[in-house]
Each structure stands twice: as structure tokens, then as C-alpha cells.
């Protein structure tokens, strides 16, 4: 028993390690072919981050984590929510407007804005959910279209409500009043080593994700529908309803993605609000195998690579975009290495069974199956 379990543990750890090694190898190959110093690049990236960088990594990871979580909700039901990008931008814009208007005092205002963001994110994703459930439109295409529509819509609305910031060409929503901002948490000295207070909500969201999916009837239904539609139908689950609900939840979580930035550092939604977080979320959800802790690891890794690559241009003279290659390759190698390890494990198991069958005196063939 112990030996089989040990092999299983080693194999499950081997997959992500193999994926990382392969991704690093491929990136190094690109660097070498392009004539850039691969060694210097890696020693810059893989150095231990300073406190300031560490804070930035955790800040970015918080945002990426929420994005990964939003994608993972859909993945659990075999839905590809590629539209997290559009959903969080529409939602963050709404939250910025609501919080900036400050109809309610203090943290009530914050809470109301967060709820609004989640509702708008859910609605935006819900369009794709309804189209999929009632009209059979692939959510992959519809969410991509909704991303582009969101870009135009937010740009238009921003121009309608925006105020011009003093001394710059950028436009943004009204600033969120001091009393409704979410205070940052310090992990060291000075304002540069602060992380978003929103991290508490992110962790809570991760826990809720795990609890709802693994410990409730609803979560069971959702996973069952994802694994086998026919089985789900046979056990009385309405697949259409589950599709819409899963997209709504995914969109609601997506609505949270931009909020740490909004309430923790930007305080306003402007034309330069960070975009592209949704696509990183897809990669992170895959990397973390749709498990809340795995997603956290993936988010930290992506944030680490992003932060550590920043000084590359100055120190080594290499464009920091090189880590985008690493990040993309990781997505592929993770999936491939899990598949390879799975095939290997199956072969190992078959060999074990065969050996057990050859020796009729051995009493326990089920040992091998464990």
C-alpha cells in the first residue's frame, strides 16, 4: 500500500515539475537561437525578490488568483469562459462609478459597489450562458465577441461619465472617497511593501469555491454535469439550468478581478486600467488544475515571472516579453506532462497487475490497483 501511494505522490509531483523544466528549456532555446544571454536572463528572474518586489508579486497574484478562480468555475462544468477579460472590465467600471458616486457612507458604499460589480459581471457572462443554453451558441465564440463589445461599451460609457484628471490627457471616473477604500496590509516597512487588503476576500472566495464545489449538492451536480452530461440528465439535473448558473457564478467571480486594484491602488477607473487579466486567468486555472490551492500556486508563479522580468531590459537588454513565451508554454507543457504521466501510470499499473497475475501465489492483486 505504502509503495503504491508513494509512486502516486511522486508521479503527481513529477507532472508540474516536468512542465516547468520543459517550459524553461523551451524558453532558453528561444533565447539562445535569438542570440540573447539565456544564463543572465534566468539568474535575473530566479533571484530572490526584494521586499518591494515580493509585495508586488503578492498584489498581482491576488488579482490573477481571482481571474483563475473565475475561469475554473466554468472549467469544472466543461465551459470555457474566455470572456473573463470583458466581464471584469465591465464590472470594475461599474464598481468605480458606484463607489465614486458614494450614495452610501463608508464601507457600506464599498460593499454595495462590490455587489454591483459581481452582479454586472454575472450578467455579462450570463448572456453567453443563456445563448449557450437556449440557442446552442458555443460559449467560446460568444464570450470572445462579448470581450470586444465590452471594450467598446466601456470606452463609450467612460467618455460619458468621466472627469478629466488635472494636468493629464487621461480620463477616469470620480475618485473613490477615502472612507470607502480598502486599506492595504503591510508586510514590511514603508508604503512600497504593502499588499492589497482585498486578499482577504480573495482567500475567502477560494475557500467558498472549494466548499461549494466539494461539499454541497449543487457542487456535485455541477461537477457531474461537467464530467458526463448524459449521467447528469439521468440523475435529474437540468443541464440548461446548470449551464446558465455556472456562467453566472463564473461571471460574478470575474466581477471581483479588477476590484483589488480599484479599491487598493487606483481608486478610479481610467482608460489605462489594466487589461488582459482574463487570458492569464485561463492559463492559471489550467496550471492549478482547477483546484483553489493549485490556482494560488499558479497565480504566484505567473506574478513572480511578471515581476522578476521587469528589470530584464535594463540589466540584460532583453525584452521582458520573453516571459509571456514561458507562461504560454507552461500551459501546454502542463497539460502534456499530466497526460504523459497519466499514460505512464496506467502502463505501470498494467505491468504491476500482469506481474501479480503471473505469480498465482501472491495473494493480493488488488494491491496493485490502489
Amino acid at each position: 500500500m505504502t509503495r503504491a501511494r508513494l509512486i502516486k505522490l511522486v508521479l503527481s509531483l513529477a507532472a508540474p515539475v516536468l512542465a516547468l523544466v520543459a517550459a524553461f528549456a523551451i524558453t532558453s532555446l528561444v533565447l539562445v537561437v535569438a542570440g540573447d544571454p539565456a544564463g543572465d536572463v534566468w539568474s535575473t528572474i530566479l533571484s530572490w525578490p526584494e521586499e518591494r518586489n515580493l509585495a508586488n508579486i503578492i498584489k498581482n497574484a491576488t488579482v490573477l488568483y481571482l481571474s483563475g478562480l473565475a475561469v475554473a468555475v466554468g472549467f469544472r462544468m466543461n465551459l470555457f469562459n474566455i470572456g473573463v477579460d470583458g466581464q471584469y472590465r465591465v464590472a470594475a467600471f461599474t464598481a468605480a462609478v458606484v463607489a465614486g458616486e458614494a450614495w452610501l457612507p463608508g464601507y457600506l458604499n464599498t460593499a454595495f459597489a462590490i455587489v454591483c460589480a459581481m452582479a454586472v459581471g454575472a450578467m455579462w457572462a450570463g448572456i453567453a450562458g443563456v445563448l449557450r443554453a437556449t440557442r446552442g451558441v458555443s460559449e467560446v465564440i460568444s464570450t470572445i465577441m462579448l470581450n470586444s463589445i465590452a471594450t467598446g461599451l466601456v470606452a463609450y460609457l467612460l467618455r460619458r461619465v468621466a472627469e478629466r484628471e488635472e494636468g493629464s490627457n487621461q480620463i477616469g471616473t470620480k475618485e473613490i472617497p477615502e472612507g470607502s477604500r480598502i486599506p492595504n496590509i503591510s508586510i514590511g516597512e514603508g508604503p512600497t511593501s504593502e499588499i492589497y487588503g482585498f486578499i482577504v476576500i480573495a482567500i475567502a472566495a477560494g475557500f467558498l469555491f472549494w466548499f461549494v464545489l466539494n461539499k454541497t449538492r449543487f457542487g456535485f451536480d455541477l461537477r457531474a454535469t461537467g464530467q458526463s452530461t448524459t449521467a447528469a440528465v439521468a440523475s435529474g439535473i437540468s443541464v440548461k439550468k446548470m449551464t446558465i448558473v455556472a456562467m453566472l457564478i463564473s461571471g460574478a467571480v470575474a466581477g471581483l478581478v479588477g476590484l483589488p486594484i480599484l479599491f487598493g491602488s487606483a481608486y478610479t477607473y481610467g482608460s489605462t486600467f489594466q487589461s488582459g487579466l482574463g487570458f492569464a486567468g485561463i492559463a492559471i486555472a489550467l496550471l492549478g488544475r482547477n483546484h483553489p490551492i493549485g490556482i494560488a500556486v499558479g497565480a504566484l508563479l505567473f506574478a513572480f515571472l511578471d515581476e522578476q522580468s521587469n528589470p530584464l531590459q535594463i540589466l540584460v537588454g532583453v525584452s521582458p516579453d520573453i516571459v509571456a513565451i514561458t507562461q504560454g508554454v507552461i500551459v501546454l507543457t502542463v497539460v502534456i506532462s499530466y497526460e504523459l504521466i497519466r499514460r505512464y501510470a496506467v502502463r505501470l499499473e498494467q505491468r504491476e497487475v500482469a506481474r501479480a497475475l503471473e505469480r498465482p501465489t501472491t495473494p493480493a492483486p488488488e494491491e496493485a490497483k490502489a
Partner: protein
Amino acid sequence: MSVPATATGVVDPVATKTRGRLPRYWIVLALLGAMLALSLLRVVTGADDLTSSGTIAATLIAIVPIMLAGLGGLWSERAGVVNIGLEGMMILGTWGAGYFGYHHGPWAGVAGAVLMGMLGGLVHAVATVLFGVDHIISGVAINIIALGAVQYLAALTFSDLEGGGQTQSPKIGDVQSLTIGPLSDGLKDVEDKDLFFVSDLAALLRALCTNLSSLVILSFLLLIVTWFVLWRTSFGLRLRSVGESPAAAESLGVKVLRYKFSAVLVSGALAGLAGAVLAMVASSNYRDGQTGGRGYIGLAAMIFGNWRPGGLLAGSGLFGYTETLGLRQGGTSVHAMLLALAVLALFLGIWQVRQGQRVTGAVIVGVGALVAALWFTIDTVPSDFTGMTPYIITLLVLAFASQRLRMPAADGQIYRKGSAG
């Protein structure tokens, strides 16, 4: 779109045979019909840019990248591999055109773009066909990798060149283009006379014989070649059989994986060529973010076209045209399109009600009424919205037509060798 589905879902086989097939030259009829409708719209609303030869020429250039991306999607999905990585392969193509085009001349740029696109296709083929990675995951990964790779390569190769930079290449030469001078001038006279339909047709013909890029001609030839190869040769028959039922194909001796692999490579090459058109015909250098989601639009055009070349052409025509209207003083033209949309929705709704689909019909009529109300209340469409037009049209089309579409039966499924047993 062609097969009328009855309310009960049972289709009379005889009726299908006689009514279901459109005549072979339907695409020509559709084009003439569209021109007629547009010239009617032009006369009614006074939005003269709807059918000017400038608009049509710009539309042709806008159509080609979308159509080529869609063709790429057609090749790979007909062999059963969903290719959402077209966008990334196009991005690779734009860089290839910029780099090789600058150093070795325009046609080397085209070849470079095709090769870079094929490289993307190779990654997709290895991941999906050999390793059985989910097609959409692989496609998303390729889009991430391609974007990063191209930004990295652009910074590496273009920043030190004159006129180049981190995000753009120096100017690259254009490929030859074709002008039939006297014909073009004669047609211009007809176009300027402002006759109903005749002038619009003249504008179309003038756009076709004035400054027509050879890459555009090549692309339309490739559409025909694709149709011929996939539907008129035994190679194509086998390729499509792999997309419909790989197990059956393998049991007949078709090398399933080999066909899938080559289809995805061709798909990448076409997407790369689409990138070349963007960099060399639609503009004159590589620029960061040049593709602007056209790979996805191409995929949508292919779905709109029911996984057929003719339909794909119609789809890319629709998207290319609306994109062009959005760019050229789009407010008035898109405003005019609202009227067309309202009328179309009205007819479609009434037709649906007559078919017995009361609810759907009522919804469509309601949407049409809303659009009509919008047309009366505003004079011009804000520029942010004109840019959204192709995406909204895609959503609407998919929402109302997706049940009539039939994708290859084994599209998106992972096939492992020997599954036939």
C-alpha cells in the same frame, strides 16, 4: 440556412432534396441581391458611402484577412481539429511579413509570414494530434505564446532599424497590384452619374479593376482551390472523413493522424498569409496588435458559413463590410444599416411566426421594433459602437442561426490512433 427545418423536427426527404439545395451560383445571386438592397438603402437614407467604390475597395481588403483566417479554420475543423489559435498564427504571420519583407523584399515577406503561421500550426498539431491536448486549451496557449514571442522578436529585430521600434517594423514594400486603366476610368464616369443600382454595380467593378493587390487575388484563388481540394478530390474526401468519423476512416485505411496533422499545418499557413495581408496590403508595416481579434472573427465567419467555403465567403463579406463602414465616417453608414436591420428583423419575425415559431418570431419583431425606434431617435452612431458592429452581428447571427448549422461530427474530439479497434 438552406434547409428549412419543420416545427416537428421531421424533414420530408423529398422536400429536402428539392428545396434544400440552393442553386450552385447562389453566391453570385446573393451578391447581386445584397448590392440591390444596399443601393435601395443608399437612396432611401442618403448615406452615399454605403456603396462608393472607396468603401468597396476597402471592404475587399478587410474581407481577405478574415476570409483567410476562416479558410484556415475550415481546413483544420474539417479534419476535426478546432483551431482557436488562428489569432496567434496570424500574429506570427504579421511579424514574419515585417521581418522577411523588410530584409528580402515583399514576396519573401509573404513566404516568411506563411512559414511563421505554419510554425504556429505545427505547435498546435503536435499538441492536439500527437499529445491529445484539448484543442481549445492548445489554441489559447498558442495565442499567449505567439503574442509574447512576437513582442519579444519585434523588440529584438526592429528596435535598431531606422523607422522601426519596439512595436513596429520599418516600412515594407508592397506586392504588385493590378489596375486596368481605361476600364477603371470608364466605370468612374458611370459611378459618378448616381444611377440607381447601375452606379453601385459600376463602383463594385471599378474597385475590382483598380489597384487590386495580387495578394487579394491570390487569396480568392485559394478559396476556390480549397473548395476544389476538399470537395472534389479523394484527398479532400479522406480529410473530411477524418473530421466526421475518424474511427470509420481509420478502419478504411486512412492515416487519420497524418491527415489531421497536415490539415492543421495548412490551417496555420493560411492564417500566416492572413497576417501578411494585414501587414503588407491593409497597412505597410508590422505593428503590435495589428490583428485585432480578426482570427476569432474569421472563426465566427466560418461558423456563420456552416463550415462551407461559399458560406465562409458570405460571412467574411458581412464582417468585412461592417468593419469598413465602422472605419469610414462610420456614424452615418452604420446608422443607415440600423434601418436595414429593422426591416430585416421584421420580415424574419413574420416568417418565423408563419412557420409556427410564435415566440421566436415575436422576439425578433420586438428587437426589430427597438432598432427602428433607435434609428428614429438618433442621427448618427457613436464611434465606439461602430467598432462593435461586427461582433454584435456575429452574436445575433449565431443566436438566430446556430440551430441550422452542422459542424463536422467529430470536431474538437481527441482521437488516438487505433481507436477503431
